């Protein structure tokens, strides 16, 4: 019964990941990240992703305030933020977000305020989407760990 649940959970994980890859939301870097997880750092991925969420929310806030604050936005600063965002996104393999960042940066370089706003909307949307999906993923993994934890004594 429990073994069945574990299988189901793993299938769910795989399905979710396959979906994320298929939609181009994540790329292979996320797999690399998962490979870095081992006994010495069991929660590496979720740790990194949490840092990523934390940083990203800060960055998104900054970007929105920069765009909303006054008529003349500081595009330079915006570019720095976007670079940061891009860097961290590519590190965890958030491909779609990274692509939106690229578009955002192109708009900001052209001082295209409307474009920036549109890109920001999109970015926020994508970010929420990714966050939800990753939370879902982590939840499944959590359950898997729990299931595995239950299974260990049975094996021994």
């Amino acid at each position, binding site marked *: 019964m429990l073994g069945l649940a574990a299988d189901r959970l793993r299938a769910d994980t795989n399905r979710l990941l396959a979906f994320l890859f298929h939609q181009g939301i994540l790329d*292979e*870097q996320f*797999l*690399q*990240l998962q*490979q*870095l997880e*081992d006994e*010495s*750092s069991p929660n*590496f991925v979720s*740790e*990194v992703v949490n*840092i*990523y969420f934390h*940083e990203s929310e800060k960055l998104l806030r900054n970007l929105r305030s920069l765009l909303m604050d006054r008529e003349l936005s500081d595009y330079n600063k915006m570019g*720095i933020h976007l*670079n*940061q965002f*891009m*860097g*961290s996104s*590519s*590190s*965890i*393999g958030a491909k779609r977000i990274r692509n939106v960042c690229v578009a955002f940066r192109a708009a900001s370089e052209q001082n295209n305020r409307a474009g920036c706003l549109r890109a920001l909307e999109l970015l926020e949307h994508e970010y929420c989407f990714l966050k939800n999906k990753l939370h879902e993923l982590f939840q499944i993994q959590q359950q898997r760990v729990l299931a595995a934890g239950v299974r260990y004594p049975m094996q021994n």
Partner: protein
Amino acid sequence: MGLKLKQSYHHSAVAVKVNEQMGTKRGYTFIQSNRAWLPKFLLLWVMVMAFLSTWIYKKMDADNKVRRKEVLSTMCEQRARMLQDQFSVSVNHVHALAILVSTFHYYKDSSAIDQETFAEYTARTAFERPLLSGVAYAERVRHSEREKFERQHGWTIKTMKREPSPIRDEYAPVIFSQETVSYIESLDMMSGEEDRENILRARATGKAVLTSPFRLLGSHHLGVVLTFPVYKSKLPPNPTVEERIEATAGYLGGAFDVESLVENLLGQLAGNQAILVNVYDITNSSDHLIMYGNQNQEGDLALLHESKLDFGDPFRKHQMICRYHQKAPTSWTALTTAFLFFVICLLVGYILYGAAIHIVKVEDDFHEMQELMVRAEAADVAKSQFLATVSHEIRTPMNGILGMLALLLDTDLSSTQRDYAQTAQACGKALIALINEVLDRAKIEAGKLELENVPFDLRSILDDVLSLFSEKSRKKGLELAVFVSDKVPEMVMGDPGRFRQIITNLVGNSVKFTERGHILVKVHVAENPKPIDDAKAETCLNGGLDEGALISGGRQFNTLSGYEAADEQNSWDSFQHLVTAEALQNDASVRMTDADEAFQSVTLMVSVEDTGIGIPLIAQDRVFMPFMQADSSTSRNYGGTGIGLSITKCLVELMGGHISFISRPQVGSTFSFTTAFGRCKKASLSDTKKSNAEDLPSGFRGLKAIVVDGKPVRAAVTRYHLKRLGMLVEVANNVKIAASACGKNGSSYGSKIQPDIVLVEKDSWLSGEDGSLSLRMLDCKQNGFKLPKMILLATNITNAELEGAKAAGFADTTIMKPLRASMVAACLQQVLGTGKKRQPGKGILNGSSVLGSLLCGKKILVVDDNMVNRRVAAGALKKFGAAVECAESGKTALKLLQLPHSFDACFMDIQMPEMDGFEATRRIRMMESQANEQMNGGADEGSGRKDEWHLPILAMTADVIHATYEECLKCGMDGYVSKPFEEENLYQAVAKFFKTKPISDS
């Protein structure tokens, strides 16, 4: 005009550029700089020459005219003098006649002369007066005496018109006359106007006088009449005119028939036809009376000559005018000369012009070609750069694909899926290999490939390459062996990677195209090659050995595997020579190495010999051309793109060598190349040796071994590997000899070799009777000597054979070929039990484990402002066992890296706020160089640290554009890894300095 100027400026600018690129200072020639003037020069030349030839014509013509004039004047003068002379002669004679008349007619009382006498005399003396048609004497008769006179002579005085004369004061009737003019007898001379005047003048002057020319009676020719007075009495000296008139008794007259006479006279002279002569009476200067010649002005009017004539009559003046009969003929000579001169000059001018034009054209073409060449070269470089860039760009995503495929293969896959994925991975690997090759070639062509110059161990590299192919060759049953001459230095300076690439390429080709036989890599020093006959002599010395091989092999060749090799020069003869020469020179080698120290470089001759399918003769000349394979079926059967050999050639040439090959279809190919390597200095040798990863164990030094092998080449290869381990090696031709050596050793020769190990080639073992061997061995054992370890050498061996071998006494071990020193060492360790520790696994080349071993225990600083990135990088590095510390900005990193620190490496993000990666690196390097200076200034040896401070800094960058990479190097970074981390990429970057550079901080 402005445009033109600009154009020309542009043109010259290009030309200057071209000149600069050619590196030669080359000015324009005179012709080139005056090209616009060339037609004008030609025109000027033609005009000058036309002028000159006209001048020549004029000059020659003038000369002609002067000569003509001179000729004319000479002829004219001649004629005039002649006429004058003749005339005066005649006049003199008439004078004499007058004296005759006066003497004999008047002074004698009765006249001694009558008409008859006079006529006779004058007729007989007519030759004296050629110009006179006749002479006559007229007596002076006064009117008072007329009747008496008429009576006396019996006729009346008649006028010229033959009428009886009217009454006058005086008459002058002709009384005597020459027969030619007898018609004038009795005519009164005074009745003719000219005659009368003449008579009066003659008696007044007492001299001969002439009439003006008139038509003579009778002949109607133009003529003049000469009149001479005859005086009755002797005149007093200086008589007055009256006295003369008074004394006059008569007149002697003669008619000059000038016309016919002059004609006659001139007829006697040469050139009569050429000139036209006129004689004039010019007494009346306004009206010239013509005496001779045609009145009509004919002939050449332009040129005439006047000569004065003096006929003895002071009252009358005459002149002769000569002309040429014809106009001066056109001077053909002058004309032709001038014309020819002009034509020649014209031609010369045209030739010069043509030459100049040609020169200009050729020079223009040359410049154009030069420009085109520069452009073509630029295009070529651009192409190579493009290739380099593009292949680099392709490589990056390819790595992603391959990585993903690798990950995919780790997951749960059905067998079909696995098969697909594996196929995809194999294809991807092939593609990336091709791209790498193209990149290499492009780099070489773009001149971007730089060779390293680091010390390396050639032998271990060859062993590595061999191990790469050992699996394949074993599968095919090929003998794969390497032999390095003893004279090749242990460590050489050069580019190990590229050398490995060359060898890998050549051996890879050989393995690919060889189905049976062997592949042998040989390295020896290319200097001082011994003459062949020397080598022959050596082989004679070892003749017995040779013979045995031939007999046992039957139709075998003295090569590694017994198959025929393409390059016979390269086979046993030279090989034997190589080995024996080395043996002979062993004692001299100390001196040799001393001498060799002087040379900075050593030239090695490397040859790769195989017994494959060979290269078809028609394809042999394009073997080194990129993308050329022997024929299209080659790539179908064997794969490959045909770019490998061209890269190899490029690499060999970059390393200062030369590659060539000998190949015979169906027999095999031998590729040989030379390269120049630097020698290692002894001081650095010990250092680098320590660092050399693959150090051979020294536990076998002094051990004695016998190699039993029927094939001398193979035996030599085995001996070479054993010698590298420091063992003493004997070669025995077959098992019997080896066994007998063993046995003898046991019985009598204590001092001779006592083998610790006997290595037996599988072929020898199979051919020899195994029974005898084991028997002998048993003998040895019974004699109480230590039993030598028996080792079987085999390329491939079946299980049955293995069992057989074990039964026959090869219980100890079997060494699978190809031989490598390290592998042999490992086996021997196992057999002899001397090895306590195993060499850390070099055998399994797994990326992560290698990376783990590289990074394990290293302390690494990661500098990145992005927390996520930092975390990921740290995680990745930690996974490989490194101790990671993080810094979030350049400034923090600087603080952490204050000397002395304990970091082994630093990964530096480039894009960071405040202080970016470049700047941070620059500062770190500055710090280090200061510290190094201080250290060198102070105690340089005491600290025990020989290396200077140099922290390897690797850039982390998301974009791996070439320019960025170069900037990384410029500011002192050691390399870069692309972000996010990829295992292979990381390994490549890290391996570069963790392997070649020993641990700097220890």
